[in-house]
C-alpha cells in the first residue's frame, strides 16, 4: 500500500516559485498600462499640482522672482473687472455651441442613417472637418467671414448686405459658435449614427403597425434608446466648448471689445501675453473647477436622462 509522504507547510512554501502565473499576469498587465500611466502622471497630474502651486505664487518670469502670496490670486478674481464679462462670454459660447452642435449632429445622424444612394458621401463630407487642422480651418473661415469675404459675397448675390461678421460683438460670437460647430459636428454625428444603428428595427416596425407617428416614434423609442450616447456627447461637447482656443485666437483675438474673450483665452492672455503666470494659473484652476462641476452634474443627471441607468 502506497502512502503519501507527509509534507509540511514550510516545504510547500519553499517550493512555490516566486513568479506564479498570477504574478506574471499582474506584471504583464502593469507593463501594458505603464506608458499610459506614466503619461498621465507626467502630463496631467504633475502639471495639475504645479498649476495649483503656481496659483498661490506671484511669479515674475523676467525678474526671476517667485513669491508666495497665498490666496491673493483667488481674491483677485473677485476684484477683476473683466471677470463677469469673461464668464458671460464663456457661458454664451458654451451653451450656444452645445445646443447647436448636439441638435445639428442628431439631425445629420438621422438624415445620413437613411438607406439612400450616395449617403456614404454625405457622411464623409460632414465628418471631414474633424480631421482638418484647427488653425487652417479658422484661417479659411476668417477669409470667408471678412467684410468683402465669401459669405457676404453670396448674400450680396441674393440682394442682402451682410454684416461685418467678426467686427460686431453679437455676430462675432455667433460666427465663432457656427465655425466651431461645423468643425466638430461630424464626430458627434458619427457617435449618434452608431447609436441609431443599434436601435432594434422591430421596435419601430411594431410602433408603425400601431400607427404611431414618426416624430412620436423618435421621441418615445429612438431618443430613450440613444440616451447613453446623448449623455456622452453632451459631456464631451461641453468640456470641449470650454477649451476652445485656436479659433478665437485666429478669428477674433477675444474681440470686438472683450465680447469673445472666454475663460481659456483670458487665461492665455494673463499667463502668456501679460506674464501674470500666478493669476493665469488661478484662472486655469477655476476652469478646471467649472469643467469638473459640470461633468459631475451631468453624470448625476444620467439617472433621469438615461432611461436604463440604475
Amino acid at each position, binding site marked *: 500500500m502506497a502512502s503519501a509522504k507527509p509534507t509540511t507547510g514550510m516545504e510547500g512554501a519553499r517550493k512555490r516559485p516566486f513568479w506564479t502565473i498570477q504574478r506574471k499576469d499582474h506584471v504583464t498587465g502593469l507593463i501594458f498600462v505603464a506608458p499610459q500611466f506614466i503619461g498621465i502622471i507626467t502630463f496631467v497630474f504633475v502639471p495639475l499640482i504645479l498649476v495649483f502651486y503656481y496659483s498661490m505664487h506671484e*511669479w*515674475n*518670469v*523676467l*525678474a*526671476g522672482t517667485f513669491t508666495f502670496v497665498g490666496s491673493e490670486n483667488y481674491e483677485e478674481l473677485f476684484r477683476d*473687472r473683466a471677470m463677469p464679462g469673461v464668464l458671460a462670454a464663456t457661458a454664451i459660447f458654451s451653451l450656444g455651441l452645445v445646443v447647436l452642435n448636439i441638435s445639428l449632429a442628431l439631425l445629420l445622424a438621422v438624415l445620413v442613417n437613411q438607406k439612400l444612394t450616395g449617403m456614404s458621401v454625405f457622411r464623409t463630407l460632414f465628418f471631414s472637418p474633424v480631421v482638418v487642422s484647427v488653425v487652417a480651418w479658422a484661417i479659411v473661415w476668417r*477669409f470667408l*467671414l*471678412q*467684410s*468683402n*469675404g465669401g459669405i457676404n459675397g453670396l448674400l450680396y448675390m441674393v440682394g442682402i448686405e451682410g454684416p*461685418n*461678421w*467678426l*467686427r*460686431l460683438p453679437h455676430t462675432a460670437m455667433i460666427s465663432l459658435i457656427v465655425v466651431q460647430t461645423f468643425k466638430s459636428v461630424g464626430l458627434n454625428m458619427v457617435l449618434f449614427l452608431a447609436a441609431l444603428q443599434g436601435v432594434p428595427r422591430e421596435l419601430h416596425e411594431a410602433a408603425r403597425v400601431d400607427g404611431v407617428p414618426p416624430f412620436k416614434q423618435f421621441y418615445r423609442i429612438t431618443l430613450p434608446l440613444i440616451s447613453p450616447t446623448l449623455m456622452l456627447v453632451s459631456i464631451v461637447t461641453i468640456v470641449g466648448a470650454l477649451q476652445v482656443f485656436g479659433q478665437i485666437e485666429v478669428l477674433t*483675438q*477675444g*474681440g*470686438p*471689445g*472683450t465680447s469673445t474673450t472666454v475663460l481659456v483665452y483670458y487665461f492665455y*492672455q494673463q499667463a*502668456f*501675453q*501679460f*506674464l501674470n*503666470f500666478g493669476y493665469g494659473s488661478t484662472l486655469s484652476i477655476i476652469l478646471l473647477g467649472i469643467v469638473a462641476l459640470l461633468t459631475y452634474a451631468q453624470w448625476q443627471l444620467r439617472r433621469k436622462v438615461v432611461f436604463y441607468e440604475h
Partner: protein
Amino acid sequence: MKLFKKSGLAAALYASAALISMNAAMAQDQINLRMLIWSANEDHLRLFNEIADAYKAQNPQVSVTYEAVPYGEFPTTLTTQIAGGNAPDLTWLTETGSFDFIAAGAMFPLTETFRTTEGYELEDYAQASIDSWSQDGELYFYPFSTSPFAVFVNNDLVREAKQKTPAELVAEGTWDWEQAVEIGAAVNAETGKHGIIFRDFDYTGWTRLAPLYTGWDVKLWSEDGKTCMMNAPEMVDAMSFLHDAIFEKKAMPGPGIAADFFAGDAAMTITQISRANLLPTGDDAFEWDLVPLPAGPIGDYGYVGAAGIGVLKASPHAQEAADFLAFFSNKENVTKLARYFPPTRSSVLTPEVLAASNPLLSVEQLTDVVIKGVVEGRSAAGHTNYEQIVQNVRASLDSLWVPDADVAQVLQATCDNLNPLLQR
C-alpha cells in the same frame, strides 16, 4: 610577444582615455550661444552666420546659432523659454517690448563691454538711440535696426485717378495728410482700388497707427506714465481725421477688408522701407515711388520702428554673449547689416554706404526718407505691462471702428479703462 601585445593594448587604452578626457575638456570649454530672432529671411540668416563664422575664427570656443520665431509669437516664445529655464543667450526685442525686460532687471548691462572693446566707438551711435535703450545711464541693447516709416506709392493708380503724385506734392512742398487722403479717396472713387493702407493694421493692432498720430503730437500717457492722455485734443483730432478718412471719404479700406498694396490693391501704403523687397516684378510690376510721411499739424516729422539686441542676464555665458554682441555690432559688421537694418551708427548712416546695399532706392530716397527718418524720427512710447496696455486699448478702440462712432466718447472710455492699469 605577449608583453608587446599587453603594452600595445595598454598604450591604446591610455590614448583612448586621454582622447576622451581631452574631448570632455574641450566640450566643457565650448560655448554655444543662441540668439532668438524674428527674421527667417534666408539673406538675413546668411549674413548673421557669416558674422558668427568670422567670430568663431577668432574665438574657436564660441559657436553661435540663430533661432527664428515668427514675429507674432515672439514675445510668448521668449517668455516661455525664460520661464522654462531655457532662456536664449541673446534676443531681439522691439523698443516697446524691451521696457519690461529692462525694468525687471532681466538684461545684462552692455556699456562696459562696448567701451572696453577695441575700436568699438560707442560714441559713433546717435545719442538719442543710445538713450532709448538705456536706463540710468546703462545701455542694455544694441540698437541694431531703426527703420523709418515711409509711404510707398503706386504711381500708376494715382495717375489713373488723375491726381498729382505724392513726389510732385513733395516737390511743391504741399505733401500732407489732407492731400494723401484726397488722393486715396480719388483712387477709390475712380478705380475701385483702395487708397491708403497702414501695413499690418487690421483694426486690432492699433499701435500700427503711430506713424499717423505722431504727426498730431499725440502722447499716449503722461511723462510719469500714470495718466492716460488718449482723450487729449491731439488724439481726438488725429482719430477723428482717421475715422473720417475711413468711413466718410473711403480713402482707406474699412474693417474686415483685406487688401495688399504690393499686390496692386492700393495707391499707397505706410510701412518700413525694408518692405521694398515685396515690390512686384515682371507682369505684376507697377511704377512705384517712396516718399516721406505726409506732414501733420506739427509739420514735417518722422517715425521709426526700433529693434535692439540684448543679452539675457539668465544666460550662463552672459559676458561671452556680450563680447559676441560687441563683435556683431562693430563698424565693419554694422556696415554689412545696413543692407537690411538701418543703423544708428553715424559713420555708416551715409547715402554712399546705404546705396551700396539698397539698389532699389535712389540716393534722394535714401537721403530724404531713410537717413532723415533715422535721425529725426520719433519712436513708440514704452511702458511697463506694455502688452496688457495694448490689449486693454485694443478692446476699447474696437467700438471706434464703426461708421457712427463718437470718437471723443470712445477715447474717453479708453482712458477710463486704461487709467487703473497705468496707476498700478
